[in-house]
């Protein structure tokens, strides 16, 4: 009987797994429990031509646009939220044609991920009728083959290269636990080719054995993890911390030095500076 080896690696190495041009399903929603430390590290490492796949991105997609690291996005709704309104660098990137947007409803994006998770080429999705989105995206209607006369839109399979999840707690072996809502993290973890995790805390394996029902992703689906305290900054990671609104406000300022200042003031950068 062999023993499991640890899946914990430094953040720089986690980011290094992601090649230029990768598509990334990013966990969380808007300012909440996103794997933002990894997003920033991808920028520091100069990654290019990335794709974001996320129902409700915000800070993550905005900072990737600001850094010129993004080429494509599939998203349902994009905003900073929490009173900050639109995501300005994302908005400019779309308006200037710098990134290619595939506009979804949140549930159509989920349907595409479900197709991937369930191993089928497409997934029927309720609603959508009367919207301009199908015309825009070339989504086909399929008539119910069982004669009800009902027609339903089929969303093509979406298979991100990576799902990147921000976890509350992980085991050394790679089990992942989140508290509160799982957002769309579960389906992301089942649809992507590879799963990477940023974790707020390392928890004892015994604690996972005691309540295995709480584990959202089992170890064998996870490739690698970095433990980064405050890794969801400037967003929230409930119950550990809330949104750092002053930090988001500082990020929102325009100016040549703001992005670098923001990146340098991030917890993982300050940690690295001390190391």
């Amino acid at each position, binding site marked *: 009987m062999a023993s499991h080896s640890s899946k914990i690696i430094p953040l720089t190495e986690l980011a290094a797994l992601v090649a230029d041009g990768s598509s990334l399903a990013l966990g969380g929603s808007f300012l909440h429990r996103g794997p933002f430390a990894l997003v920033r590290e991808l920028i520091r490492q100069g990654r290019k031509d990335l794709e974001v796949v996320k129902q409700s991105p915000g800070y993550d997609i905005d900072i990737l646009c600001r850094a010129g690291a993004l080429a494509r996005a599939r998203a349902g709704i994009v905003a900073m939220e929490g009173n900050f309104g639109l995501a300005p660098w994302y908005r400019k990137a779309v*308006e200037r044609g710098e990134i290619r947007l595939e506009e979804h409803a*949140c549930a159509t994006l989920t349907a595409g991920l479900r197709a991937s998770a369930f191993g089928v080429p497409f997934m029927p999705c309720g609603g959508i009728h009367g919207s301009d989105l199908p015309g825009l995206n070339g989504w086909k209607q399929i008539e119910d083959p069982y004669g009800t006369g009902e027609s339903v839109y089929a969303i093509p399979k979406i298979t991100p290269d990576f799902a990147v999840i921000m976890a509350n707690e992980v085991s050394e072996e790679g089990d992942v636990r989140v508290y509160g809502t799982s957002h769309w993290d*579960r389906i992301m973890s089942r649809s992507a080719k590879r799963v990477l995790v940023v974790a707020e805390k390392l928890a004892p394996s015994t604690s996972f054995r005691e309540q295995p029902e709480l584990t959202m992703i089992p170890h064998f689906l996870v490739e690698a993890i970095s433990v980064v305290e405050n890794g969801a900054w400037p967003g929230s990671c409930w119950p550990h911390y809330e949104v750092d609104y002053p930090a988001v406000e500082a990020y929102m300022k325009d100016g040549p030095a703001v992005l670098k200042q923001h990146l340098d003031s991030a917890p993982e950068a300050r940690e690295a500076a001390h190391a």
Partner: protein
Amino acid sequence: MREWSGFSYIVTNLARFVRPREITFSGVNSALPMLACLVAKQAYDFDFTYINVAGGVDPRPSKVPISSSDPVLAEGSRSIFSNEDFYDLCTRGQMDLCYLGAAQVDGLGRTNVSVIGDWHAPKVRLPGGGGGAVMLPTAKRAVTWRTEHSIRTLVETLDFITASGGMHGVVTPIAVFMKREGRLVLSSWHPAASLDEVRARTGFAFEADGAEPTAPPTEAEAAALSKLDADGDFERDAAIKLR
């Protein structure tokens, strides 16, 4: 009472769409519906299920968060109802009422949350529809709101149809519309406004039979909102003007 503020008008009238024993949902980017659901919980003497995008199910939040998707909105919940779950609830026809945002609304109650200008050459790229295209046609009733009542927001022709379908009601700082036979119809107007003003500031034609000034907030409604926004932060942030 001072003049009924646009902020209170929208929140109160959104709350009035909530019905006993129903399942009501508020989503992202939706501070006003979030407040409306919390007002309804406090002000109305009936039971309903309030679910939200933070996974909360009849939560007991320790405070009212700035972000309407903040995890504090799941505090005190006895279950977490995740994003996949509430969308499925809606598409299978069990969502009674949901609030969905809009930048433009037309006379058929369709919405644009995608773009001002041409989609492929946008003048303004908007957030995108989020739940809209799927929830609007599948919820039993959907309700939207606009903090600006103008011919820019209530339009004859949308720049893009993000979502179409079961729109039940629209609330602005000066009016409440309801859908009747496929078109929005004026239901009531702000007591400080008038039918003429609503017509002048609305880009689409509408019927108004039976419309009248909106009933002012009840004591319970006013008290609930005062308590939820004790410092007036939400009202200040929303910065909603009647005119």
